[in-house]
């Protein structure tokens, strides 16, 4: 088993309109179902965490600027660590991610083994 970082881009907390109670409930249930399924299948190494939207960007020379660093739908909203046989299986797993329902995407990156 290899490990993969899932970077969730957009679709997490970049909505400009307030979510309705129904949307919020539906989204929470989708994510819980997603993590629940991965856990049961033994694919989940670490749930990871959602990230707050604000941030700082530190460049060479000590220049610090405020985030966000990219367009709303490009902002990384959270990450998880997934276990899979290879990159293609990891990508298959990512297809089931609820981030798509909110217009986001997943970047799948293999963790370089020691």
């Amino acid at each position, binding site marked *: 088993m290899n490990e993969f970082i899932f970077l969730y881009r957009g679709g*997490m*907390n970049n*909505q400009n309109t*307030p*979510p*309705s*109670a*129904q949307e*919020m*409930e539906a*989204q*929470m*249930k*989708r*994510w*819980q179902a997603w*993590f629940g399924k991965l856990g049961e299948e033994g694919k989940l190494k670490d*749930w*990871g*965490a*959602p990230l*707050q939207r604000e941030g700082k960007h530190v460049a060479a020379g000590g220049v610090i600027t405020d985030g966000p660093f990219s367009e709303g739908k490009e902002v990384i*909203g*959270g990450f998880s660590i997934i276990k899979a046989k290879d990159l293609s299986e990891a990508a298959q797993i990512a297809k089931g991610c609820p981030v798509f329902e909110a217009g986001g995407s997943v970047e799948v990156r293999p963790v370089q083994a020691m």
Partner: protein
Amino acid sequence: MAPSVHAVVEHLFRQESGKLAASLARSFGLSKLDVVEDIVHESLLAALTSWSFHGLPENPTAWLHRVAKHKAVDHIRKRALESREAEEILPALSAASHTLTFEHNFLPGEIEDSQLRMMFACAHPGIPVESQIALMLKTLCGFSVREIASAFLTQEATIEKRLGRARKYFRDHHVTLEPPVGAALTDRRPAVLTALYLLFNEGYKRTESEDDRSSADGLLNRDLCLEALRLALLISKHAEIRSPETDALVALMMLLAVRFDTRTAEDGSMVLLSEQDRSQWNQQLIETGMEYLRRSEPDVYTSAYHLEAGIQSLHVTATTYAETNWAAILGLYKQRYALTPSPLVAMHMAVAVAEVHGPQAALELLDAVPMPEHYLYHAIRGNISLKAGAVESARESFHSARTLTRNATERALLEARLASLEAGVA
């Protein structure tokens, strides 16, 4: 068992968002209502993302309040660094004492007080009554624009405009949350009571299908009714602002709440008043409701709330549907109609007319008043036609009602009625 995601989210949206807004508005002032709403919105979003990953926290309400407090303090700090605007946000307060006030505003007793202040502050005479009510429903009761539009029977764009103008007024006039005193305060009470009445109604007409997630209408539940009742009680218990109308409104809400559990069968289908199991009615609520009705002095005052509470009191104290004092109910409806001669009142009155003077008289009443294209009108008309033996006309009415309703439970009931009609005729 841990509360369901559904229950927690509903609770947060319906009750906590209003409490948050009220607490925050006390620090920021109503002129910064957009900032307040942004913070509430951001806090809900933070809850959404965090809980999606980590599951529900042990105390979701405390979690939300904590996050909102952080965001509010952050906001003020940023503002203080950026500009002099901080002075405008909190005129006389230094940074230290301001934090204190802030914590203070989140204490339970203060939250209730904040909500009362907020209600009466929203009922500002500088903006039209419809806007006052829309604002209360939006900021204090967690209504979406769509839900407000549905309560007012109007378009979402209209509500957006009303809210926008109200916010602008508060901003332009630097309105604070300081409640007015004396007559200026009590002058605002009718609008506040109307908002609570609408809030309760909105919950009540949808309680039938609170677990049905398929309806597109954005289902609410009895939480909404209980919240309206809680807020009405806050006013009723407040020595300076209570009034007979407030007591009557409390009585009305309680007497309607008596039937919460008997309005739906176990399978979720709707049970009509005539078929409800009256032994299951909440006796304690009946007693308390009747007590409030007495306190409201219905012999002296005859507001719409007094009359409607009176009607409900006759329903809940009748031992059977047949033994209901329909003549007295009809008398109250006539007074109610004299107060507001609206088709909606006439529609409900027709049910009493049918019981007292027979279905033909009720149909004549319905024909005499221009009726709205409302599912309830057609449903009532269908029932009365059926009593009059006009099966074909009843069928037409039930068909229209089924087309118009947006509530799945009501639709199911109407379809059952139509099916039994088909079976009866065949």
